[in-house]
């Protein structure tokens, strides 16, 4: 078949249809799982066996290899989720809204993980499970925003309306995230001074940085894999009336 560049461009857009995206996602999922496993093994090896113990914090600091990637991913996923929601709202594409819906639980999980591991780190280092530090507080608020998005989508029966309402909420949230972050930061310095700061650690050893980067990449690949798996389920659920879903081999048993 003759294929002009224009046709190739059209092919990219053809993946915005759930029917063509479903098999593509199925092919991509194992790839991202393999990447996540490889990066995770390498990252954990570096973070447990190669990276030296911290001069001040001893072995306990090693939780940052989970904590920092989880915090990064929670913020990154919120941005990606809002971007998909915006695309869905503007171009009225069904798949974008499904992607936003599929990302939200992973984002909430990452925010929760970040808070939980932060508490484990804080107890031996600060002597408290929780302090009203600016970063902790804004991470908690980010978790609330994720939960609000999930709750709003879950309580609207009409999926198209749920998508659009969720998209507006995500966009309002993304405008608010920097405002919330800076207000919490100023509130923090106003009320208790910056006695507690996560940035007090001296420049990190190279191996620590490598461990953290590899773990962040591992979390990233994991998030993509799990979001693709979830979006496949959402596609099946929403498109269950269509012919291509009824003709799927996996569902023929």
């Amino acid at each position, binding site marked *: 078949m003759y294929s002009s560049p224009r046709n190739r461009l059209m092919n990219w857009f053809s993946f915005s249809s759930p029917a063509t995206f479903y098999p593509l996602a199925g092919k991509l999922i194992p790839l991202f799982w393999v990447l996540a496993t490889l990066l995770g093994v390498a990252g954990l090896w570096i973070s447990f066996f190669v990276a030296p113990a911290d001069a001040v914090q001893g072995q306990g600091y090693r939780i940052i290899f989970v904590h920092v990637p989880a915090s990064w991913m929670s913020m990154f996923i919120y941005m990606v989720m809002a971007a998909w929601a915006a695309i869905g709202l503007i171009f009225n594409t069904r798949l974008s809204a499904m992607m936003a819906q599929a990302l939200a639980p992973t984002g909430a999980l990452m925010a929760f993980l970040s808070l939980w591991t932060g508490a484990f780190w804080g107890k031996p280092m600060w002597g408290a499970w929780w302090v009203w530090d600016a970063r902790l507080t804004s991470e908690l608020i980010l978790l*609330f925003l994720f939960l609000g998005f999930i709750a*709003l989508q879950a309580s609207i029966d009409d999926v198209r309306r749920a998508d659009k*309402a969720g998209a*507006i909420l995500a966009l*309002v949230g993304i405008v608010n995230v920097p*405002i*919330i972050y800076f*207000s*919490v930061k100023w509130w923090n310095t*106003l009320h208790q001074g910056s006695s507690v700061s996560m940035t007090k650690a001296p420049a990190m050893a190279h191996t620590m940085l490598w461990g953290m980067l590899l773990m962040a990449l591992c979390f990233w690949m994991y998030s993509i894999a799990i979001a693709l798996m979830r979006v496949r389920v959402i596609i099946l659920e929403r498109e269950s009336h269509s012919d291509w879903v009824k003709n799927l081999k996996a569902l023929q048993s």
Partner: protein
Amino acid sequence: MSAFFAIIRRDLLLVFRRKSEVLTILFFFIIVTSLFPLGIGADSGLLRKIAPGIIWVAALLATILGLSRLFISDYADGTLEQMTLSPTPLVLLVGGKITAHWIVCGLPLVLLAPVIGIQFDLNSETLGTLILALLLGTPILSLIGAIGAALTLGVRGGGVLLSLLVLPLYIPVLIFGAGAVFASSVGLDVSGHFSLLAALLVLSLAFAPWATAASIRIAIE
């Protein structure tokens, strides 16, 4: 613009015909703030310290209570649908409804706050700051809240969901509003807080009515 004022007039008229709804919200505000001394103790030094936070949190909750009735009756009887179809831009009509909501639910809180501030032993200068901060802050609460109210129109468990959606977005207003009162009570400069509150007000004035109008269109289609 006449449509804007007509909506305000209509909403106010509706409220005056059924005063109990609004009075309930005001009494909620008074009761919540009066409960704190009972729970914490009558130590006036401590009460003076926590007064800004308590009054602001109570104002937030009272606003949330009032929000659930912002669009719901108009949605139920089809008035909202007529508004989206009218030649006047929906943003203007929504702006009118939000303004009316603030006059009914926000302004009384501003006027009541000094009385409650006296209960918490705040001095006159701090009371002045409290009034000014609430005057700047409560319109923001109404504006942001309207987005949540429109998003949860006709949704299962709308009232509780509304607070889950809106309260996290209220955090900056709470921080700077209560921060201004606190700063004034310990003799610090409050102009920074007021500038930030005013900036938030301008920002929400610019965006919130549009987001609300878009949410209403989604709820109605």
